[in-house]
């Protein structure tokens, strides 16, 4: 078993034997906060594995693209031949959940903070256009409580780090949450079929409700 960045030197390694019978969900582990996603996916009953290579995609029932730098993850995915196999699996209906950088990678188009088109490798699976670093630089990063459609109970505490927002979306995309900004309310969680995107980092908190929602979605897709 390989060590992934951020993994404790002491705690048991990231075993892929979560609950037997749970769906197998890969976390794209080229760069970013992989470990945090593995933790919440396992808590939601999935077998969660870090994936870095094309050969590791075949056995997956679903994919999480973590937070990180979208340019770095995209470039490495391109260099290691992961873009086309990933696009193929997503076209075939594999569920995916992208947080922050992951949401950017799922989008069909990305814009820079100032609105210029961002030239970077994307998977183009979701009919959304994202604006990178839309809330501003790190000093504008923030935490907020969000009402997310489909989640019961307390509002979700969301951590936004140099976060994007969803600038435009097609008719098949459902908006699940917005956040208020000085420029009006902006879309920060969206779903299109089996694809889920959040502009913030649910993996940085202990609230696993979005991950549980995604694991349920993967389970349903696997039984169809």
């Amino acid at each position, binding site marked *: 078993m*390989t*060590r*992934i*960045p*951020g993994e*404790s*030197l*002491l*705690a048991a390694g990231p075993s892929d034997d979560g609950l037997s019978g749970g769906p197998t969900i890969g976390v794209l*582990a*080229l*760069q*970013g*906060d*992989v*470990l*945090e996603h593995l933790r919440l996916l396992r808590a939601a009953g999935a077998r969660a594995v870090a994936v*870095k290579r094309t050969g590791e995609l075949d056995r997956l029932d679903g994919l999480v693209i973590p*937070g*990180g*730098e979208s*340019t*770095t993850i995209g*470039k*490495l995915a391109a*260099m290691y031949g992961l873009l086309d196999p990933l696009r193929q699996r997503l076209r075939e209906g594999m569920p995916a959940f992208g947080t*922050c*950088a992951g949401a950017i990678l799922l989008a069909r188009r990305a814009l*820079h*903070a100032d609105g210029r088109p*961002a030239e970077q490798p994307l998977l183009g699976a979701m009919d959304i256009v994202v604006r*990178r*670093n839309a*809330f501003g*630089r*790190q*000093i*504008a*990063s*923030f*935490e*907020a*409580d*969000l*009402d997310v459609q489909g989640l019961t109970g307390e*509002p979700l505490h969301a*951590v*936004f*780090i*140099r976060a994007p927002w969803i600038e435009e979306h097609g008719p098949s995309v459902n908006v699940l949450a*917005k*956040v*208020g*900004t*000085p420029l009006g*309310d*902006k879309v920060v969680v969206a779903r299109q079929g089996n694809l889920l995107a959040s502009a913030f*980092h649910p993996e*940085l908190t202990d609230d696993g409700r979005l991950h549980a929602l995604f694991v349920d979605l993967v389970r349903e897709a696997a039984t169809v």
Partner: protein
Amino acid sequence: MTDSTALRGTDRVKRGLADMLKGGVIMDVVTPDQATIAEEAGAVAVMALERVPADIRRDGGVARMSDPDMIDEIVRAVSIPVMAKARIGHFVEAQVLQSLGVDYVDESEVLTPADEAHHIDKHAFTVPFVCGATNLGEALRRIGEGAAMIRSKGEAGTGNVVEAVRHMRAITGGIRRLAGMGAEERYAEAKELRAPYDLVAEVAESGRLPVVLFTAGGVATPADAALMMQLGADGVFVGSGIFKSGDPAKRARAIVEATTYFNDPDVIAKVSRDLGEAMVGIEIDTLTPDQRLANRGW
């Protein structure tokens, strides 16, 4: 629904950016062109500074925060986070960097210290800080002062990885030692480490630092980067090693690949080929104690 301006500069938000940099390479750059090369190569962030450590070493004199114009140009050139260095204890340089909108401040021993007794009170800032450490006690003192990210110091500007290895082993070894202790032993260990007890107890329970741990100071090759990752680093700072080498773009990309695939010798072998000249290294023993940057800070 709360607003996007409600809760900024929290520990979670500060440490969170470092979490997003994990598994990545942060590169020293001195011009917007170099910043673009770094971004193209897949760097997760750049460190904007006037001179790389190898040149600071060669030129001597007082090394200070960079010119705000130069930092602005680099901020405009790339979409990835931009870090910049302030002198140890120079909280006004840090205030200036925060006002310029840099994403992380490195309170760095590479610059000439401005205060010989006190580091910056980093809790007082919205911008997060990364600080160097040579051992666990130093790391925990910096976190106690508000650092949201730690890097092992190594010996910057030498192209020699030996000190980075020493410091990374000291930090991870210190964590292992702490995790093996009984609860009653932690009090004496906190005194020994000269570190806040609460942080000592937290590390003992979790078996890891409460913030991300990168490595820095002497990484010059893809194999150096992978070595540090296998020793437990969450990511790598490369200073002089890239833009003091023969083919910076190629070496930058190779170090990024070696950091992602750090446990795959086939990848490291492949990316290590035909990289041109590495930076000329310095044998640590030839440095006098006052030439050793890692001795700055306490």
